[in-house]
C-alpha cells in the first residue's frame, strides 16, 4: 500500500531551491552566471546560497591535489548563516580544512588521512571543537559516499573546464570520479574550481551533466609530490633489506602483481630490480603488474623492461611527460596524459595484487602494525586496503596459493578448506630515528585511542593479515606459525637488539630458524657485505632523470644540481 502523504523527491526539490537561490544571488550582483561559470569573486556568495546548516559537504581534500581556493572560500562564510556542516573528505591537508571547525562553520568530520594536520586535529578533538564520525581508509570512505555519507555539496578541483561544465582532471584525477558520481546522482550539487577555461578539453574526465558550477580560481590548485624519494638517502641497511625482500619473498613466491607502500625501503627494492634482481635472473618472473603511483624510483626498472602495467591512485609531480611517453605501461587518455583513479586503484590493490609490502612505525608481539603516535590523529589513508588479505578474492595465482597453503598446512576444522592468501609484508629497521625501537610490547595506538576517545585502537595492519616481517636481522614467516608463542618468538627473533628482541627465547628462535620460519640473510645466501649503495640502479635524483632520458622533471625541491 502506498504511503499516502509522503513526498518522495525532497532531495530533488531541495536541489532545485538551492540552485534557484544561487541564480538569484548571482543575478543580483550583476556579474551572474555565464553558463555554469561563476566568477571567483562570487564564490562566497554562491556557497552561502547553496549551503544549508547541517549539510554534508565533501571537499577535495585528496592525497595530492587540493581544492584550496574553495577551501579558503568556505572558511569565509558567516557562521551565523552557515554552521554545523558535516565535512566528509579523504585528506585533511590544508590549515583551512581545520579552520572551518575553528570558525564554527563545520562541526562534524568523517575522513581518512590527515598527514600535516594530525597534531592540530588531535588538539582540536580533545578541546571538543571537532566531532569525528569515523576515520576510514580511502576506499571505505568512497564506499560510504554511496551508502550513508552521500555528500549534499561537493567542492572539487580540476585542471580545466569548458562552457558546458565538462571537466578535465588530467593526471591528478584521483578521487574526483567517485565523489562526483555519488553527489550528482543523489540530489547533490557539484562545484568545481579549475585552473583554466578552455573551448575544447584535451579529454572529458567528468561529464558536464554531473557538474553544476565551475569557478576559474585565481591560482592553480595545490598539488603535493608525495611519492618522490631521493635515492641519495637510501642507506646500506635498506639495500640489505631490499636484497632479502627480493630473494626471500619476491623470488620465493613468484610475485608478479603488487603494491609498494611509500618509503625509502620500497624505493630501494625498486632500484635493485635492474641490478640485483637481474643478477638473480628474475626479470619476467616478478614485478610485472603494479597498483602504484608513478614512483620516480621505478624508472630504471621500467626502462629495463621489468614492468608491463601500472595503474595509479594519483599522479606524481614531474612524472607527467615520462608517463605520457610510456603509454604501454601507464593508463593514459586519448590526450596522452595519465588517467589516475584512486577508488579503482584501491580496488586493484586490494583484490588484484598478490603482495603488499610497506613500512611502519611500530609492531607488537602479535604482529599488529601501527603508525599511530600519541598526540597525532593521522588516520589510515589507503594502506589497510593493500595491507589486508582480500577474503572476497576467488581467482588463483601461484603466489596467492602458496601463501594460503603455508597458512593452512597441517590445520584442521574450518582451516582445512584450501584457499589462498595475500602476502602482506611489513619491512622495517629494528631501530628508527633517535634509536626508537620499532618493536614494542604495547602500541602507542592504545594511548591514542584513550586520548581521542576512539572506540578501538587505530591499527594500520592487523597481525592476522601480516604474513611476513622483514628487518635487517631477517624474515619472519608468520604464515608458518601455529601458536601464539611461536608467533611471538618469530617476531622477537627478527627484532634485533630492541628490548623486545633481546628478551627472545634463544633456543626457540634457533628452532624456528631450523624450521625456516625465521630466515637470516646467510640462510638466503646473501653476503651482507655486498649490501652497498653501488647496487642501486640510480643513486641520486639526477641519475633518475638520466634513466628517463630527460623525460622526468623533478620538482624544484629535488633538483640538487
Amino acid at each position, binding site marked *: 500500500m502506498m504511503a499516502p502523504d509522503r513526498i518522495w523527491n525532497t532531495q530533488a526539490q531541495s536541489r532545485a531551491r538551492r540552485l534557484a537561490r544561487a541564480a538569484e544571488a548571482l543575478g543580483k550582483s550583476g556579474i551572474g552566471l555565464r553558463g555554469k561559470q561563476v566568477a571567483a569573486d562570487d564564490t562566497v556568495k554562491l556557497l552561502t546560497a547553496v549551503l544549508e546548516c547541517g549539510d554534508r559537504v565533501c571537499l577535495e581534500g585528496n592525497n595530492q591535489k587540493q581544492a584550496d581556493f574553495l577551501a579558503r572560500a568556505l572558511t569565509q562564510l558567516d557562521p551565523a548563516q552557515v554552521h554545523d556542516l558535516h565535512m566528509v573528505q579523504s585528506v585533511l591537508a590544508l590549515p583551512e580544512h581545520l579552520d572551518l571547525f575553528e570558525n564554527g562553520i563545520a562541526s562534524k568530520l568523517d575522513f581518512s588521512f590527515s598527514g600535516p594536520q594530525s597534531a592540530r586535529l588531535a588538539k582540536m578533538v580533545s578541546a571538543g571543537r571537532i566531532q569525528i564520525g569515523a576515520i576510514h581508509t580511502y576506499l571505505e570512505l568512497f564506499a560510504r559516499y554511496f551508502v550513508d555519507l552521500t555528500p549534499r555539496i561537493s567542492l572539487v578541483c580540476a585542471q580545466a573546464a569548458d562552457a558546458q561544465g565538462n571537466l578535465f582532471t588530467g593526471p591528478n584525477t584521483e578521487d574526483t570520479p567517485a565523489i562526483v558520481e555519488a553527489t550528482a546522482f543523489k540530489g547533490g550539487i557539484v562545484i568545481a574550481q579549475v585552473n583554466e577555461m578552455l573551448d575544447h578539453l584535451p579529454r572529458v574526465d567528468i561529464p558536464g551533466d554531473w557538474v553544476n558550477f565551475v569557478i576559474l580560481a585565481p591560482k592553480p590548485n595545490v598539488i603535493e609530490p608525495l611519492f618522490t624519494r631521493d635515492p641519495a638517502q637510501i642507506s646500506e641497511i635498506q639495500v640489505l633489506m631490499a636484497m632479502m625482500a627480493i630473494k626471500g619473498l619476491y623470488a620465493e613466491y613468484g610475485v608478479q602483481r603488487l603494491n609498494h607502500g611509500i618509503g625509502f625501503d620500497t624505493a630501494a627494492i625498486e632500484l635493485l630490480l635492474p641490478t640485483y634482481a637481474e643478477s638473480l635472473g628474475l626479470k619476467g618472473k616478478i614485478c610485472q603488474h603494479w597498483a602504484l603511483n608513478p614512483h620516480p624510483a621505478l624508472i630504471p626498472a621500467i626502462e629495463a623492461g621489468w614492468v608491463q602495467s601500472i595503474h595509479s591512485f594519483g599522479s606524481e609531480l614531474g612524472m607527467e611527460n615520462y608517463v605520457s611517453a610510456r603509454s604501454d605501461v601507464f593508463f593514459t587518455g586519448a590526450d596522452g596524459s595519465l588517467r589516475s583513479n584512486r577508488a579503482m586503484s584501491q580496488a586493484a590493490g586490494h583484490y588484484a595484487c598478490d603482495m603488499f609490502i610497506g613500512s611502519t612505525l611500530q609492531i607488537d608481539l602479535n604482529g599488529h602494525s601501527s603508525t599511530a603516535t600519541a598526540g597525532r590523529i593521522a588516520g589510515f589513508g589507503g594502506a589497510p586496503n593493500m595491507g589486508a588479505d582480500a577474503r572476497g578474492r576467488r581467482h588463483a595465482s601461484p603466489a596467492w596459493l602458496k601463501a594460503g597453503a603455508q597458512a593452512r598446512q597441517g590445520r584442521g576444522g574450518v582451516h582445512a578448506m584450501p584457499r589462498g592468501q595475500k602476502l602482506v609484508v611489513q619491512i622495517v629497521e629494528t631501530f628508527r630515528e633517535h634509536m626508537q625501537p620499532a618493536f614494542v610490547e604495547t602500541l602507542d595506538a592504545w594511548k591514542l585511542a584513550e586520548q581521542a576517545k576512539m572506540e578501538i585502537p587505530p591499527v594500520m595492519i592487523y597481525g592476522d593479515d601480516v604474513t611476513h616481517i622483514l628487518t635487517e636481522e631477517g624474515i619472519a614467516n608468520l604464515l608458518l606459525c601455529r601458536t601464539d608463542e611461536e608467533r611471538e618468538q618469530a617476531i622477537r627473533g627478527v627484532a634485533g637488539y630492541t628490548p623486545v628482541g633481546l628478551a627472545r627465547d634463544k633456543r626457540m628462535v634457533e628452532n624456528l630458524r631450523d624450521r625456516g620460519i625465521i630466515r637470516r640473510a646467510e640462510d638466503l645466501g646473501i653476503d651482507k657485505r655486498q649490501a652497498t*649503495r653501488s647496487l642501486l640502479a640510480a*643513486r641520486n635524483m639526477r641519475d633518475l632523470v638520466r634513466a628517463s632520458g630527460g623525460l622526468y622533471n623533478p620538482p*624544484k*625541491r629535488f*633538483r*640538487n*644540481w
Partner: protein
Amino acid sequence: MKLSFSELSARERVAHLLDAGSFTEILGPAERVVSPHLAQLGVPFSFDDGVVIGNGTLWGSKVLIAAQEGEFMGGGVGEVHGAKLVGILRRAVSTRPAAVLVLAESGGVRLHEANAGLIAVSEVMRALLDVRAAGIPVVMLIGGANGCFGGMGLIARCADHIVMSDAARMSMSGPEVIESSHGVEEYDSRDRSLVWRTTGGKHRFLMGDCDRLVEDDMGAFRAAAAALLGDSKALTLEGLLAEHAMLAKRIECFGDCHDALEIWQRLGVEHAEQVTDMESDQMQNLLSDNAMEAA
C-alpha cells in the same frame, strides 16, 4: 664502468685515484693523532682527524696526496687536520713530487676548534704558497657532496689548478649563511638549483674559477689529475695583478646580473637555460666563443 667520486669515502677516493697499491699513509689512524679539542666538547673524534695524507704514484709519477673526509665534522679543518695538511705540503718542498693532490671536501674552519682551526687554515695557505714557489703544482680535486667552502674555498683558489665535477660546489659563504645574512628573497638556500648555479662546478668552469670540469667519476678525476702533473703556474706579481684586473673586469661585465643564467648568456653561451642539465663533456665546447678571458 663508472665509479662515483662523491659516493666514496676519502680513504676510498685515495685508493682509486692513485696507482693501485702505491699509497703509503702518513700519520694513519693506528697512530691516533687525534683532535685534542673535541673530547672536551663531548664530540667523538676520528682516528685520522678527518683527513688522509700520504704518498703514492699516479701514472707512475710520485705524488703527495691529502683527502678530506666530508662526513666527519663536515670536513671542517681543525688543529690536527690542518697540521696534517701543512705537513704534507712542507714535505713536498723537500721531496719534490710531480704534484700535491688535495681532494678537498670541507665546510671550512672546524668551528668547534675555533682559533686553532682559523690558524690552521692560514698555515695551510702559507704552506701551499711555499710549494708553488718551489715550482711544484698543487692540484685541488673537488667532487664531494659537501663541496669546498669557507677557508678551504680560499685555500683552493690559492692552488695552481682546480678540477671540479658538476656535482661539486666551491665558494666561501655557504648557502644558509647567505640566506640568513641577506634574506630569503635574495637567496633561497632551499632552491638547490640556485645554489648549484651560483657555486657549482659548471658555473665555476664557465667563470674560469676552475680549469677542468669532469663528470662524477673516479676515472675522470684520475685522468684530469694525471694531465696536470708537473704543470706548475708561476706565482708572480704580474700574475697577481692580472688576477686583480680580471676580477675588476668581472664586476664590470656582470655586476648587474641577478642570476648565473644571465652571466652565461652574456658569456655567449647559446641555450644557457640548458646548461644545468648538460653533462660535463658537453660543457667543454661552450666557451669556444667566450666573451670573457679566464685568468
